[in-house]
């Protein structure tokens, strides 16, 4: 069993997914993220997939589930770093990760989370997605 570490940076939890994880490793990550969200009270989750060489329908759905679950708890999720070959395979597989916000790299992902969070507690928006 491989543990995916979750680190907290300011108002965001960051999980960097290693390559070739078991389904159960990813399910454990889902539970860890939800529990850490509750404990820490942060507003954002960033999942870095740049090390993942294969994303199949199980992992694709789990990413959607993580994002939806985080939303139910009041946090936004962004998935960053999907490799070009992985993106092409996912599309051919028939998945579009609907409901999952994506960004090219961690910097852009963090910028989006920041903006969303300003909207939530700030003055001009609905903080919704």
């Amino acid at each position, binding site marked *: 069993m491989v543990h995916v570490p979750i680190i907290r940076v300011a108002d965001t939890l960051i999980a960097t997914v290693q390559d*070739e*994880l*078991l*389904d*159960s490793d990813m399910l454990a990550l889902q539970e860890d993220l939800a529990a850490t969200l509750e404990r820490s009270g942060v507003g954002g989750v960033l999942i870095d997939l740049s090390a993942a*060489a*294969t*994303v*199949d*329908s*199980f992992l*694709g*759905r789990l990413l959607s589930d993580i994002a939806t679950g985080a939303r139910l708890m009041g946090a936004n999720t962004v998935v960053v770093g999907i*490799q*070009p*070959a*992985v993106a*092409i*395979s*996912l599309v*051919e*597989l*028939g*998945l579009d990760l609907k409901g999952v916000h994506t960004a090219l790299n961690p910097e852009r992902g963090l910028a989006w989370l920041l903006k969303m969070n300003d909207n939530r507690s700030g003055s001009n928006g609905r903080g919704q997605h």
Partner: protein
Amino acid sequence: MSNGTSNNGTSKMEMRVTVSGEGDIVAARQAARQMAIALGFGSVDQSRIATAVSELVRNVVRYANGGRGEVLLHELPSTPRGVGIELVVADDGPGIADLDLALHPGYTTGPGLGMGLPGTRRLMDETTIDSSHGRGTTVTIRKWHR
């Protein structure tokens, strides 16, 4: 899981992965990627092949008796279409009663998305499914590159 690779001047590359649990989903797609790399497939094809294998082996783990089965990977004799890889994912499980239905995107009898079989067909050049109720399931997939 057990791997056996043989590759010399005359004979074709061949590997085998025994499936008995979720760890073999990873083992099988690693073997597939390794062979795809050795045969000169590009990174997108490597990813397509690994993704298809991942779907098929997860189905064995989920649906076959005791989650047991086997993956055979081999290089195809080269043809005008170029170099080819063939993967055979087989189990002695309950089989698929209605194949047309199973190939329909979104159809599932389990916890999945029902995209595995239709998606595999799109990812690969050729997909053959040999299955019927009570007779197990054998899925053969092929991909070529010039």
